[in-house]
């Protein structure tokens, strides 16, 4: 086998470069260290991509090194041309949300209508321009056809899906599919819940009194009913397997609270310290109160349409590079059986979403993780490859995930501080980040003028954010992901 160092530059051949080596669209050059086997497949390497091995490297060097046989490269080409068929062809064109509160004082129908209408206005779409609507819920909300009716929207497609976390990204993918096959043209996706005043997300109240039958008998009779109770053994086993500490993970709450202090919409705007988290009362070990997210009344909405239609709308289109929906570990009925217990679904989702997008974690400027708990953020960032598996504790406590750090996470404060939306708000925030019009305290924020002063009560716009990623979580064995670019 001969070893060649190839220099790749953007060009018409870009689509055939394996995703792990591709530059992001803003793109500098990428470097591939390929181990090639001589053979009949040699010819397809475009001569323009090859340089003499002796020639010194010029340009930016990436740390990713791909070693692949040429046959593998060719196989990857074929697979990719299929997987990337929809990359950049669909956009998020409108976003909207109601106030985050613990007392909406109205129905989910009312809040859903407000959120959908705001997203339509944001996009510059009228009732006649939206013909698809989807929502997700757990028998705690209003179906899409009623909300559409209220707004004078005649639907060519609608669907209400059972589910909570990880549904946002999954429904975005389904909306793309519905549009792609011609079922409809533009889809509004909403989630409306009175998660504090009606059906409490934390599991207290009506949910705690529900009869126990079927699959629930394997856990609920043992006092394992709420999300925190259902996830905690995963978190605990991660601490055992990798030495992760409560103090490390508390940094997630610290970071998100700092971000929330720059967000007029956030329910909790007060910055907290690691000590605050560790001294808050225990809920279910290893979770303290401040490791847990909020319960909130709210509705949220985003609108998906084709890149072609997006060009004529009010906002800068935010392109969907890749999406993975409800990707799962084996034995999703009782995931403990399959293991490893400290592994989460991102392990399986990452190749799908990065494969479609043709980028690596290094190319992502801002992330939005599903922070139902501090631990879920740590586990997902680690599983998607933003750090090595097992080093999530060190990663989230390094400052990287804070505004001003290399790759801020949940810049609006997330579920831990802004409000609990079953995942939608983190996608909305990333759309605004990529537009450059995050609604912080900068006087000219709406015009995209930001100070990038990240002290309390100031700015939360990430400088030059071009690519974002959302990491959606339903439970340890199920997750979704979404990569966006401006």
């Amino acid at each position, binding site marked *: 086998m001969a070893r060649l160092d190839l220099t790749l530059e953007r060009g018409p051949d870009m689509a055939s470069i394996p995703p792990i080596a591709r530059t992001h669209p803003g793109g500098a050059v990428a470097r591939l260290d390929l181990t090639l086997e001589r053979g009949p497949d040699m010819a397809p390497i475009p001569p323009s991509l090859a340089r003499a091995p002796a020639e010194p490297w010029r340009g930016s060097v990436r740390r990713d090194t791909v070693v692949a046989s040429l046959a593998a490269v060719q196989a990857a080409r074929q697979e990719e041309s299929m997987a990337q068929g929809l990359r950049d062809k669909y956009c998020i064109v409108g976003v909207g949300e109601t106030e985050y509160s613990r007392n909406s004082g109205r129905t989910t129908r009312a809040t859903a209508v407000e959120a959908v209408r705001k997203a339509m206005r944001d996009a510059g779409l009228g009732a006649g321009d939206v013909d698809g609507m989807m929502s997700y819920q757990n028998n705690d909300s209003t179906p899409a056809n009623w909300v559409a009716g209220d707004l004078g929207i005649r639907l060519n497609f609608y669907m209400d899906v059972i589910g909570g976390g990880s549904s946002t990204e999954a429904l975005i993918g389904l909306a793309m599919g519905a549009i792609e096959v011609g079922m409809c043209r533009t889809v509004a996706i909403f989630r409306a819940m009175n998660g504090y005043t009606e059906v409490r997300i*934390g*599991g*207290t109240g009506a949910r*705690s*009194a529900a*009869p*126990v*039958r*079927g*699959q629930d*008998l*394997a*856990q*609920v*009779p*043992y*006092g*394992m*009913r*709420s999300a925190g*109770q259902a996830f*905690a*053994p*995963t978190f*605990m*086993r991660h*601490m*055992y397997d990798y030495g992760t*500490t*409560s103090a490390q993970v508390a940094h997630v709450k610290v970071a998100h609270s700092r971000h929330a202090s720059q967000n007029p919409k956030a329910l909790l705007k007060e910055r907290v310290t690691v000590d605050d988290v560790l001294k808050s*009362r*225990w*809920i*279910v*070990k*290893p979770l303290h109160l401040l490791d847990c997210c909020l319960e909130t009344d709210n509705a949220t909405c985003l609108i998906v349409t084709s890149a072609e239609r997006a060009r004529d709308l009010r906002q800068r289109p935010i392109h969907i590079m890749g999406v993975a929906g409800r990707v799962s570990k*084996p*034995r999703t*009925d*009782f995931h*403990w*059986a*399959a*293991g*490893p*217990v400290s592994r989460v679904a991102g392990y399986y989702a990452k190749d799908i979403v990065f494969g479609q997008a043709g980028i690596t974690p290094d190319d992502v400027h801002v992330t939005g993780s599903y922070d139902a708990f501090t631990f879920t953020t740590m586990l997902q960032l680690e599983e998607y490859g933003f750090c090595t598996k097992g080093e999530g504790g060190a990663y989230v406590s390094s400052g990287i995930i804070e505004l001003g750090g290399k790759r801020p996470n949940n810049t609006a404060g997330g579920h831990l501080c802004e409000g609990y939306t079953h995942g939608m708000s983190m996608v909305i925030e990333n759309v605004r980040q990529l537009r450059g019009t995050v609604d912080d305290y900068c006087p000219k924020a709406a015009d995209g003028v930001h100070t990038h002063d990240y002290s309390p009560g100031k700015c939360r716009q990430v400088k030059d954010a071009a690519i974002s990623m959302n990491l959606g979580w339903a439970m340890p064995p199920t997750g979704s992901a979404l990569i966006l670019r401006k």
Partner: protein
Amino acid sequence: MPAPVTYRGMSLVIPDNDSEWIEFYAHARAHRLMMRKCSACGLMRYPPTHACPWCQELGWTWQEVSGRGTIHSYEVVMHAIQPGFKEITPYAVVLVDLDEQRGQPTPDEALRVIANLVKPDFTAEADANVAIGKRVRVVFQDLADHLALPQFTLSDEPPEGRVWRLPE
């Protein structure tokens, strides 16, 4: 249909056509921990489901297991959600690797069961005594003529591997 069993304020509903749990709980009431064993590949599974997740065979038989195992992970509930659990809080929920079928058919798999870690009188074991690596054995908490809940209690066997609990 047998009347729902009320346990710690919860209604446990096991109708006549419950083809997953009726027999499992009847065996538990006879103080036997039974797993469904695939008629084709011989692997056991929990919970009692309808097909073999490894070979998709529908046929199965009940197989008794020893009920001995090791704590793989755990949690200690300090703030109960269900009202009936408030009186026993704090209580531990343990994820137990049963001795049978450990690391089969792949190294990360095991016959794992979730239950509470209890003292012999079924009160909650003290938080300080719960740890990954500790050995446990099954005990059966009788709730009705047709139903007992499998629970785990600490055994007197030496622990397996590294013993770890959440630092105070």
